[in-house]
């Protein structure tokens, strides 16, 4: 009996003791910023976008400096040029009109910055993509993360598809999630208030102790994106039916239905190689057998003015198939959802008198950006 107890002790300590814990006292020892080119070209009927920013040299207080006023265009195999123009958001360039990529089309990206630096991509050919089939999801707990860690519990999403008969097909899955804002709060001003004339938060001197929050004046949705890279190459299974491919892990931060837009992409070999190296650096870590952490610089965009310049990012030419659906999150068992804790704040409300006499406003408008929109996505249920 004693020996059994001892066995239990040993094996439980072994698996309790091998653990992953957040590192609290981390201090960054090096800082550097690189040009980051995030350029996509796909066959979805939406504006084609290039993001031109500098990487953030600080890992905690991230700031991506936009590169403005650049000339950016795609050229196809026939030499037809399509220009992108900078949007109201600096560093973001988009095509106008109905231009979309064509499966089988070969495209080159050219960028010229205002200070005369030139960048050119290798020609990339858009590959086809099959339909998404047979989606299922399963609640799974990762015991190596501690209780309370948001990585611990979640829903894994699996799908099937038929690989194309051609060799060298590479796939990627991404998702987009929309959700209503917590308490419909559009803006929270940290130790300050919202100045409606300047349309921004201002910090009075001395700063107030309170954080003030303002409700939205209309529909406003938060957008979040897949955090994991999900990739697949048909190197070992060309032309086969691929089943049970895990393509997403949905966070368990609530039990409400989870709106999801899932995209299945047919990507190029260069994109696959680039994303695969990022995947190794960020997802296959935390084991005894990690490979050296090393950033791979762009595999298909080079500077023509300074060939030694190291550039981050990729010219990602892909075709895409989309599916929109809701995930039932009431099936999570054995643990509580880890909710995002909203910032402690007071909701600013004008009294009717204030509104009448001083033209007081207490609702702010929804700011369109990567992470927020006024526009309800397709398939959205209120």
């Amino acid at each position: 009996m004693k020996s059994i107890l001892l066995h239990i002790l040993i094996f439980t300590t072994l698996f309790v003791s091998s653990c992953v814990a957040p590192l609290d006292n981390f201090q960054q020892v090096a800082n550097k910023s690189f040009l980051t080119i995030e350029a996509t070209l796909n066959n979805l009927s939406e504006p084609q976008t290039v993001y031109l920013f500098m990487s953030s040299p600080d890992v905690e207080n991230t700031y991506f400096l936009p590169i403005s006023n650049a000339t950016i265009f795609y050229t196809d195999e026939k030499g037809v040029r399509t220009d992108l123009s900078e949007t109201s958001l600096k560093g973001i360039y988009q095509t106008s009109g109905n231009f979309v990529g064509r499966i089988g089309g070969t495209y080159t990206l050219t960028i010229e910055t205002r200070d005369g630096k030139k960048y050119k991509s290798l020609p990339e050919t858009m590959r086809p993509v099959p339909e998404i089939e047979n989606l299922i999801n399963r609640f799974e707990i990762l015991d190596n993360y501690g209780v309370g860690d948001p990585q611990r519990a979640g829903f894994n999403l699996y799908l099937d598809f038929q690989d194309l008969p051609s060799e060298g097909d590479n796939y990627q899955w991404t998702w987009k999630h929309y959700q209503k804002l917590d308490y419909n709060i559009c803006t929270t001003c940290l130790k300050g208030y919202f100045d409606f004339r300047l349309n921004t938060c201002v910090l009075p001197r001395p700063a107030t102790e309170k954080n003030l929050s303002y409700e939205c004046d209309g529909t406003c949705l938060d957008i979040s994106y897949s955090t994991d890279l999900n990739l697949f190459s048909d190197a070992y299974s060309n032309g086969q039916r691929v089943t049970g491919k895990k393509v997403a892990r949905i966070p368990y931060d609530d039990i409400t239905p989870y709106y999801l837009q899932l995209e299945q992409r047919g990507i190029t070999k260069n994109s696959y190689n680039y994303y695969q190296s990022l995947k190794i650096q960020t997802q296959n870590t935390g084991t005894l057998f990690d490979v050296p952490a090393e950033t791979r610089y762009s595999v298909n965009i080079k500077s023509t003015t300074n060939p030694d310049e190291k550039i981050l990012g990729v010219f990602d030419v892909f075709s895409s198939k989309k599916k929109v659906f809701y995930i039932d999150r009431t099936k999570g068992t054995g643990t509580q959802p880890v909710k995002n804790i909203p910032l402690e704040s007071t909701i600013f409300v004008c009294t009717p008198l204030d509104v009448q006499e001083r033209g007081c406003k207490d609702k702010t408008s929804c700011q369109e950006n990567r992470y927020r929109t006024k526009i309800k996505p397709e398939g959205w249920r209120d």
Partner: protein
Amino acid sequence: MSQSIQFSLFKLFLILFLFINNCGFVLAQNKEFKLPVLEGKVTDSKTGEPIRGATISLDFKKSGIITDSSGYFSIYLSSGEYIVKVSHVGYKPFRIKIPLRSDYRLDVQLDDITKTLEEVIVSSQATRKDIQTPSLGVTILSIKGIKKLPAMMGEVDIIRSLQTLPGVSSVGEGSNGINVRGGAIDQNLIFIDDAPIFNPTHLFGLFSVFASDAIRELELYKGGVPSRFGGRTASILDIKMTEPNLEKFKLQGGIGLVSNRAMVEVPIIKDKLSVLAAGRLSFNDFWFKLIGPDNIKNTRANFYDLATKVFYRPNKNNTISLSTYVSSDFYQVDSLFSLENVIARRTQFDYGHLNFSGRWSHYFNTRLSMDVVGVLSKYKTRTYAPDSVNRIELTNSIDYKNVKVNFDYNPNDNHKINFGLSGVRYDISPGILNQNVKSRIAAVILPEEQSMEYAAYVDDEYKVNSKFTIQAGFRFAFFTNLGPYSIRKYAEGQPRTANSLIGTEEIGSGSVEKSYSGLEPRVAMKYSFGENATVKFGYNRMQQFIQILSNNTTPLPTSRWKTSDSYIKPQVSDFLSLGYFRNIQENVFELSAEAYYRQTDNVVDFISGANLQLNKSIETQVVSGQAKAYGLELMLTKKRGEMSGWISYTYARSLQQVRGDFPELQQIAGGNWYASNYDKPHSVNMMLNIQPTKHHSFAFTFAYNTGRPFSSPSGIFQLDNKRYPVYETRNNDRISDYHRLDFSWTITNPSLKERRWEGSWTFTVYNLYGRKNAYSVFFKPTGGGIRPYELSVFGAPFISLSYNFKFL
């Protein structure tokens, strides 16, 4: 403030108490109240000579009185019971409990321990062979000694024990193999009775592979490698199996938490032929299923070792021994982590060695002897996913065949000449996926690779005079990679990639694809200052024609081995060392200081994002560079006595520079020198073994080292709405320092009776104070940025109990 007052009051109280006590003593004498006296004489048990300066201490107090020049002592004590300890440096302490009511005479004879056997596990130099040999950086460990070290989960572990030595480290707990003086793990050549071990650990690095009972001793050559050894650049670990007892049947074994062991030695023909068989078997993994959390319920982890040896001595001039060694691991996990782009719910791994070696030793006369050795060794691995549609079976293997002949010739007392020849053949199957397997996953077959490694060597240990000895020699190695082999040709002036491939040259079966050869000088010399101090100097060159291709922190057991070819050049290292050795107090203590420097060329690293698995054009993934390592090792050993052990301090660096043929595309860390994964500049190791009685022994080991390097990001970039760390340089920061204390208590023959059956219990606590030592630091993207995490492997104390027995 109040605390300091309290403390002062406490001191005052103490002083008063002592004072009052003293007063009482004086008063008592004044009243002519005679106290009993304890007196006696301390002498040497062998010579009968009085021992001057021996300490007599009472009730475990540190201070005591000492004997005079005639060995005499005397002390007045109040009546009562006392525990008296008589001790002197170089002698075994003597303890007695005495009831003191009247005067007591205590004559003690102490045993001189400088003439007893060494109790210590290890010696920083080959003392057992001779302090007088010129070889440097050689460590001999006896298995008897290793068994005294506290063992993790009660498993006597050779690889872990070696890590208590200066100059030997590993990437971290649970990593595979050892790093010797800044070398990679595949730069060590491990032999067990002449047969090589390609993977020295079970369960992905958790335990050593060897069946400890069958092992007699280990010799670790950290630097001064004699010319009879070659083929790896960092170290040689030569493990010798026990020779089976020719006279008596012996049985021994043990029951532990992880595995159970047994060894039997059976004399078949007395004094001529005997057999040994030893096994170790682990089958305790059912606990995963019974009590493990959900994610490990399906985990299976079992292993076994089996060693046999037949020893035959037909006459005085000939001995023949045949050894076999088999190791096997089976491991099953729920997720697949070894083959990208294959979807499987469950993966099984099995791997192991099948080794056979035969040795014939012939003594021509007292001056000349010969050893003829033949070795067959196979290491194979299999990764298997028993999925119905995505079934995979991935195998690789390495076959090693060796014939060597070695002569020892001592023409006179001043020369010891050693010379010989060796030939090795390697047949490597770098990877076969799904050959004859019905599955949706395709078959991929990498062609077999075959090569030969020949060597001729000679060295002479020449004793010039009583103070100076020189050992000089060389090894000539010739390596040839043989066909059938496909040499992929790449466009001139371009890095080797799929895009620069211009054609393939086929090499026919048995034809030479590429050959390399080189002379390896080996020199060691020693100068003695008197009997107890020596200075030694050594230089050697080593070449290595085979390596593991792995870019993991620690290689997986399934990693691919690759011999040199047109693109992968042999590694060459030059090693210099200087040492000072001193025996103190009649060999009770030994002090050593060794400094070394090693430069290695053609070390292998990999391009960023390398794909090594089942890659037919592996040369497109490999980049070569150079490595250097240097260090200073200081060690003080107490070799004999009731308390023995050692303390060592090591300063060591291990650095690499990888630029490749096209630095602008291939260089790592901007082409600068960077710290290797196992670069841990400062380390302190301590081992203490206390054996107060025949039945009890206690051991403590303590280890401290600087945290190993990791790559810290220099920023963040954003791509497709995800954030990623930017790693601009490699290994530019360090994880927190490592330290750990272990303890073990062994009770031998608890029944206290002398019988043929001798049992012992060992109680071990690994990581006594439960420090969560970090193995690695890594970063995960979170919504707004990246988050650092720390992985620790054994972050809690491990308690274990094992029972060992001997039947003689």
